[in-house]
Structures are given as structure tokens and as C-alpha cells.
């Protein structure tokens, strides 16, 4: 009798959740339609500022909701994230792909004493990351629905604030503003890892903070030197200014300190496995999806255009570091016992590809690098989401505890397989396009490095497929199967979370031009700029 009541209650509960969910989807579809209507006209409102401040206001709104109304907090966070995503859509529709200029520019004087402006804008290099960040933020919220059970209010507030700061980084056209966003993001991220993470979370959070803080402060010194040399903090003006070679070299190193830690490049990558492993699923997704992209973005936005000669001089060094990261990350993956740690180290390897592409300093390499950043955000984000979902059922991340998952969770296995293949770079998935372009670029730049990186691709296939085999096939582990049985296969919320990413994987895999067309002109311009600046100097 009691059991029946409980089951009834559970069904009712599930029903309510599904109702809520379909409501959310309805709102989503409805607002997409509205947004398209909006986009048909010219964008009259400051679209970029809206994107930054809407989640901040949202976080403030969540802060005033009473603590015990948990459902309301979660729902409003989800709604805010969805509306934010919808708000980004006009950006893509009105984006002019035929120009390398900054678009949707906004400019206000901010600190008159220093001539610092509040200046925003996007070009083909940065625009994709705004979409990616908004999308992943929604998924972070849906995946945390049942995972985060303490301090809910703070959690969703922190996620929204992190998102705001991250897209601020990609939009800033003033180097001072850029730095503010770059650092401000550390505060919520430190909390996300440290408060809601795994058993070793405090160590991971402090390590993450101190590593990035040291790198950032060295960049700050570089920023001040730049600012004093040119008398302006406007990024576009800074790009056009030629700097003496010696100065370029030191500034390159100062910015390198910040970006290399963030990417992370070997040998300053050691914060990443800890932070990724200990962070809650949403934290891992944000870290892997957007945060580490900011380092590579920094290379593209600052190091290449501002210090072109130093970039060319440092090219062999950077390529070697990248290849070391690729091979080293892949080899470490082979011996990992922890699911999340394995994916974290695979990030080191994949980001090595990104920096390899960027410092090949040619069209294919850089385009591949940017595409690979988006791909890595999608695929690794998805893999972390998958791991989060199964961890919630089994409460273990040790590979040896799994086995035979495919028989009990077929849908989950299919999703995981797709993402595994994308991570390996199978043709037909997005990973292939990015890695192919990067290898093409690297081949043009330095054949040996291309060959070494290509060999590492095989190791990539080895560790991912072996991981898949150990977790999903082989003998089943009855103890853990029991846990999975309690929950069953993926529920609707989880499938909805993974589906957009799966679509993106296949879509980009077959039609990469959807993304490449955004950055074509901007990358061409960047390459041209590097070349002319170097020639002018000689």
C-alpha cells in the first residue's frame, strides 16, 4: 500500500516535472520566433551590453528569491539562461560575414582620468564563443538540476555571473575592460569549484585561482606597459601600433603567461586536471567549454596582431610546446583511472591542437584552431555532461568499477559513442574538420610537428576507444548495475540536455561552413595584418 502511494507520488512528481519542462520548451520555441521577428529589423538596442548585463540582473533577481523556494530558483535560472540564449540569436542573423570590422560596436567613456572606454564589439573570431557560452550555460543549469543540492541560490547565481564575465571577455574592445572581465570571472569560478566540487575541491580551487591569478597579473604588467607606450587602452588602436622588437618580445611573454595558463599549455597545465576533476559537472563544462578557450582567444586577439614579429620568432617554440602538450596529454590519458581526469587530460591534448593551429600562422591553421575550440567546447562539454549523469547514478568515477553499461543504458551509450567518435576526430563529426584543418596548417608551417601531432591522434583513438570499451562493454559490475537500475536510462531532461550538442556535432561535421563562414574574413584580415606588420618592420 505504502509503496503504491510512493510510486504514485513519484509519478505525479515526474509528471509535474515534465509539464514544467514542456512549458520551458514552449517558451523557448516561442521566443525564438519572436527573436527572428526582431532580427528582421536592424538591431536598435545595445545588444552586447544587454547580453552581458541580463545575466547579472538575473543573478541579482535569484539572490532575492527566498532560499526555500528551490524549484522557483532553478526555474528562473533556467529561464534567464534560455532568454539569454534567445537574445544571442539576433547577433547571428544580423552578423555581417563580409567584413572583418568590429560589429555591434558600443562605446562610452568610462574612466575619463585614464581615457579608458567601455567599448564592446564582436568580429568573426569572437562571435561564435558567445553562442557557445550561452548554449552551454543552459545545459549547465539543466544538468545541475538534481546534482546540486546545497546552496542552490549561490550556485545558479555564480553560473550566470561566470557566463556574463566570460562573454564580456570575448566582447571587450578595451584592454582594461578585458582585464576586468578576465579576472572577475575568477571569483564565481573559484566558488563553483570550491563549494560544490568533489572531495578534493578546496585544493583544486585554490590551485586554479593562484595559477591563473599569477598569469593574469603578469599580463596586467604587460597591459600597463602597452597602455603607457601608446597612451590608449583601445584594443583596435593597440593592434595598429607598431612596437619595437625588444618590447614586443617581453610583452609577448607577459601575455603568454596569462594565456598559456588559461589554455593550458604544457608545462603550466597542472591546475586543469585537478580543477576539472573536482568541479561539479556544470563547473567542468564551463571550464572545458568556454574558460580555457579564453586563453587561445587571447593569443588570437592580442599576441598575433599586436606582437607579430615576436609571434613569428616564437612560432617554433610555441609549436613545440603545443606538440608536447598533444603527445603528453594523450599519453597521460592512457594511464588514467578516473573518468573525469581522463577527459581533463584529453583537454590538454586537444588544446595543444588549438595552439598548434594558431601558431602555424596561416589561414587553415587559425581557422582550424578556432573551429577546434568550438568543437572541443561542444564535445568535451558533452562528455563531462555524460560523466556527470552517470556519476549521479553510481557515485563513482573509477573506470574499473564500470563495465557493461551499454546493456542497461542503451540511449546513454549511443550518446557517449557519438561524442567519443567526435573527440577522436572521426570523419563526419565536427572533430575531424577542426583537426584536419589544423594538421593542414601545421604541415605548411613545419612538417615534423604535423607528423608528430598526427601520430598523437592515434593515441587519442586508443585511449578514447579503450575507455569506451572498459565502461560500456566487458563484464558487467553487478554492484553498480543495481544503482543504474534504480534510475534507469537517461530521462527526458537529460536527453534534452545532450541532444543539441549531438546535433551540433553532426551538423558541423557535415557542414562546417556554417561556422567557418563567420570567421573567414576576420582570419584572412588577421593573417594579412601579421604579414604586413612584419614586413613593415623589416
Amino acid at each position: 500500500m505504502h509503496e503504491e502511494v510512493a510510486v504514485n507520488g513519484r509519478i505525479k512528481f515526474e509528471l509535474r516535472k515534465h509539464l514544467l519542462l514542456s512549458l520551458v520548451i514552449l517558451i523557448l520555441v516561442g521566443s525564438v520566433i519572436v527573436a527572428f521577428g526582431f532580427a528582421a529589423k536592424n538591431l536598435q538596442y545595445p545588444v552586447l551590453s544587454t547580453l552581458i548585463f541580463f545575466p547579472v540582473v538575473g543573478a541579482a533577481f535569484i539572490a532575492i528569491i527566498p532560499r526555500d523556494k528551490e524549484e522557483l530558483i532553478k526555474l528562473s535560472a533556467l529561464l534567464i539562461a534560455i532568454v539569454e540564449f534567445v537574445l544571442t540569436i539576433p547577433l547571428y542573423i544580423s552578423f555581417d560575414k563580409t567584413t572583418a570590422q568590429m560589429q555591434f560596436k558600443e562605446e562610452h567613456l568610462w574612466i575619463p582620468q585614464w581615457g579608458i572606454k567601455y567599448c564592446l564589439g564582436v568580429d568573426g573570431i569572437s562571435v561564435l564563443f558567445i553562442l557557445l557560452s550561452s548554449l552551454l550555460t543552459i545545459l549547465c543549469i539543466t544538468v545541475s538540476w538534481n546534482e546540486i543540492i546545497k546552496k542552490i541560490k549561490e550556485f545558479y547565481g555564480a553560473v550566470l555571473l561566470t557566463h556574463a564575465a566570460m562573454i564580456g571577455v570575448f566582447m571587450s574592445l578595451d584592454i582594461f575592460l578585458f582585464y576586468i572581465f578576465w579576472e572577475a570571472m575568477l571569483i564565481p569560478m573559484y566558488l563553483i569549484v570550491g563549494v560544490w566540487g568533489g572531495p578534493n575541491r578546496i585544493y583544486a580551487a585554490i590551485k586554479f585561482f593562484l595559477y591563473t591569478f599569477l598569469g593574469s597579473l603578469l599580463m596586467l604588467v604587460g597591459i600597463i606597459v602597452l597602455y603607457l607606450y601608446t597612451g590608449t587602452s583601445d584594443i583596435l588602436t593597440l593592434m595598429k601600433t607598431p612596437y619595437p622588437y625588444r618590447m614586443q618580445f617581453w610583452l609577448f611573454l607577459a601575455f603568454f603567461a596569462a594565456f598559456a595558463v588559461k589554455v593550458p599549455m604544457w608545462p603550466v597545465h597542472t591546475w586543469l586536471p585537478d580543477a576539472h576533476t573536482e568541479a561539479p559537472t556544470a563547473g567542468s563544462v564551463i571550464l572545458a567549454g568556454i574558460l580555457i578557450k579564453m586563453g587561445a582567444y587571447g593569443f588570437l586577439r592580442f599576441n598575433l596582431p599586436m606582437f607579430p614579429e615576436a609571434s613569428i620568432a616564437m612560432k617554433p617554440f610555441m609549436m613545440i610546446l603545443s606538440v608536447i602538450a598533444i603527445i603528453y596529454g594523450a599519453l597521460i590519458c592512457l594511464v588514467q583511472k578516473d573518468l573525469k581526469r581522463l577527459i581533463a587530460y584529453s583537454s590538454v591534448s586537444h588544446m595543444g591542437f588549438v595552439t598548434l593551429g594558431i601558431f602555424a600562422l596561416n589561414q587553415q591553421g587559425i581557422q582550424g584552431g578556432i573551429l577546434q575550440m568550438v568543437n572541443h567546447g561542444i564535445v568535451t562539454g558533452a562528455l563531462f555532461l555524460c560523466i556527470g549523469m552517470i556519476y549521479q547514478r553510481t557515485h563513482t568515477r573509477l573506470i574499473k568499477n564500470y563495465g557493461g553499461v551499454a546493456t542497461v543504458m542503451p540511449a546513454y551509450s549511443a550518446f557517449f559513442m557519438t561524442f567519443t567518435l567526435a573527440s577522436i576526430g572521426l570523419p563526419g563529426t565536427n572533430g575531424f574538420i577542426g583537426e584536419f584543418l589544423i594538421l593542414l596548417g601545421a604541415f605548411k608551417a613545419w612538417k615534423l610537428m604535423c607528423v608528430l601531432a598526427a601520430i598523437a591522434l592515434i593515441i587519442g583513438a586508443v585511449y578514447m576507444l579503450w575507455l569506451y570499451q572498459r565502461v560500456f562493454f566487458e563484464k558487467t559490475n553487478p554492484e553498480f548495475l543495481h544503482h543504474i537500475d534504480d534510475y534507469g536510462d537517461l530521462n527526458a531532461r537529460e536527453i534534452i540536455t545532450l541532444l543539441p550538442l549531438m546535433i551540433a556535432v553532426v551538423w558541423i561535421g557535415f557542414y562546417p561552413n556554417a561556422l567557418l563562414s563567420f570567421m573567414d574574413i576576420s582570419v584572412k584580415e588577421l593573417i594579412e595584418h601579421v604579414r604586413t606588420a612584419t614586413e613593415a618592420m623589416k
Partner: protein
Amino acid sequence: MNIPQIPLNFEALIPEVALTGFASLILLVGLFKIRKEILLWSAVLFLLVLTILIPSFEGKSFGEMFLNGFIAIYLKIIILAGTAISLLVLASYLKERLILLNESIALLLFSALGMMLMVSARELMSFFVSFELMSLSIYILAGIRRYDPRSNEAAIKYFMLGGLSTAIMLFGIAFIYGATNTTDFSEIINSISNYPILSLTGLVLFIVGLCFKIAIVPFHMWAPDVYEGSPTPVTAFISTVPKVAVLGAFGRILIEIFKSYYFEWSSFLIVLSILTMAVGNLVALPQKNIKRMLAYSSIAHAGYIILGLIVGTQTGFNAVVVYMLIYTLMNIGAFAMVILFNEENIENYKGLHKFHPALALAMLIFMFSLTGVPPTAGFIVKFNIFLQAIKADLTWLVIVAVIFTVISAYYYLRIVMYIYMKEPVKMPQPVFSKELEIAVLVCVIGVTVLGVLPLFLI
């Protein structure tokens, strides 16, 4: 002897005269049976009115002796506002412990008076007298908890070492007088190079005396003990507002008067600055008592601040002044949180977030601001100092400061970590009072709003 006729011109001195009158009135009225709240709030109100009105009293008094210029007014605004906030913090603390309120208020006002005179002084004797007025009032405040041996110890230590340092400074002043035969700043500037040996000796002694007051290593030994032993609100006060005044006066004397000895004193200060940052930050790391930790943290901040003085220009000095404004806000704020939580042991801060999320957030903001992470105001002022130092080709020194900033992040974040990430070990017993809450709120708003909109820059 022919005494020249100089215009007295009291106008610029009106705020100081008013403050003297008001402080004496508080002492007097306090003898009668009157509600202490009235005394407190009238004092706060008076300070606020003075803060608002003081820009209109620009000018000179007693010839050149007293100058109320732009920087002096800016400093006085910090001093008055800082004193008002400290007063709120102090009052709630004393009320609870039934300690004499009117005397404390009067002492606080008198020390503020000393500071105001000090930042305006253009003459060594009046500088010294106002310096003493400030110091003596603070010595008594440190021992205001008469029956607490720790408070007594702090007061005695502070008084003994303070007296020694004042003597050294006076000795330095005597040397300067001997070298230049005058105590007037504008005349000293002209004749400072006459007897370099005498002037330099005077300079070094003078710097030592002042370094003691702002707790620059190796003259910092008193600070942790005094900060720990004094009642927390008094600690909040002495770690911030007097430093504003001393640094304001100190900076002006170094930059204006000893301009011709720039190389000598700046190399001296570079060494002291590195030492201060190193000792302050490294010793703060293992501290178990939060007041002690904040004491070492303010030593470390003094190290960053004198970077701005080392620059040796007016803009560098301006950077120091604006740093002091934000430093005052965040440090008083942090100490006010310690009073609110009513807890000195860092271990007991574990899990506080669970009970008081709003307080935890305020503490988080202060800690990140002290570290210098944007978007808090602590970042803006630190950036300003670094900017000026790099402008003066001191990039290597800024890199040293940057490395120590990263080290400092560890102990500030440890507080955040305890509050947010650990499970509570003990039920906190915070002491709420509306005065304290107002003070914390003002500091939080100041630190965050000014961090996003830095309107205070000069």
C-alpha cells in the same frame, strides 16, 4: 627682533576649529545624564556635515603655515569619513561592553583633529604637534578596555614604542632645523642642500619615525601585538585612518621638501618596500588569529602603498591618496566583519555561510578587494599604483609586488574558503547592531560601486 606681519586668515581653519569645539563639547555634555545615542549620532552627523562642507574651505591660514589645498581636502575627506565609520563601529562595541562612550568619542575626534592639522601643516613644529595630538589620543584608545590585560598590554607597547619613534623623528626634525635654520617647508626647500650630511641624517631619522607609524618593516614589530590586543574597533581605526594622515604628510614632505634627495630616499624606500611586502605577506600566511592576519595584511598593503611614493611625482602621490581611500573602506569593513562575527579564531569561521549568507558575501567582497581582484575597488587602486610605478620605470619592482600579491591571495582566499567551503565547527554568535550594519553596508557599497565606477580618481 623684527617679527614680520603675516595675515592670520582663519577662514581655512574653520573646520578644525569647529571640530575642536565639538569634541570639547562632547566631553563636557557627556558628564551629564544624557542618552549616549544622542552623543554618538550627533558626532557622526557632525563629521558627515564637515565632510561635505570641507571643500569650500580651501585656502591658507597663518601665512604659509596651514594650507588647505586640493590634496589636503581630499585627505581630510577620507579622514573624516573614515572616522565617522570607525565611530559607528566603535560605538556599537563599547555600548555592548558598557565602556565609557563620551570619552572614546572625544578621543576619536581629537585624533581626527590631529590628523587634519597634520595633512595641512606646512611647518615642522605644527606638523609635530598635530602628529602628537593624533598619536596620544590613539594610545589611550588602544587601552580603552581598562580591565582587559591584553588591551593594557597593547596600549603600553604602543605608547612605549610610539614614544621612542616620535623621539627619533623629533631628533630628525632637529637635524633638519640645524641644516636649514628654519622649520617652514617653503624655506626648507631652498636651503636643504646647504649641509647635505645634516640634512640626510635628519631625513633618515625622520623617515624612520614615520615608517614606525605606518608599520613599515623593520619598524613594524609593534603592529601585530597592538592590533591583536586593542579592542577590534580601535584596531580598525588605527590600521586605517592615521595611516591616511601619516602617509599624506609623509608623502608631501618627501616629494616636495626632499626633492633634491630623491635618489637617496627612494632607494631607501625601495628596500623597505620589498621587505614590507615580503614580511607582511609571508607572515600573514600561517596566522591563526584573524586580527593578526589582518595586521600583517595591512603591513603588506603599506608595502604596496609606498611604491607610489617611490615614484616621487605628484601623480604617484595622488595614487597613494586614492589607494588610502579604498584601503580605509575595505580594511574598516573587514574589521567590522570581525566584530560582527564576534570571533577572532580563523578556524571558527568555517561554514559561516550556512548561517549568515549576507554577512558571508560581505566578507567575500572585502577579501577579494584586499587581494585586488576586479571588479572591486581594491583592484582599481592597485592598478593605479602599478601604473604609476611602471611609468617611473620601476617595472621590476611591480613584478615583485605582483608576485607578493599572488601570495597574498592565498591567505585572503583562505578566509573565503573557510566561510564558504568548510562545514561549520561551531555555531557563530554574531553581534548585530544597527550602527555596525550601517558601517558594513557603507563599506560594501563603497568597495563595489567605486570598483565599477571609479569616480574618486584624481
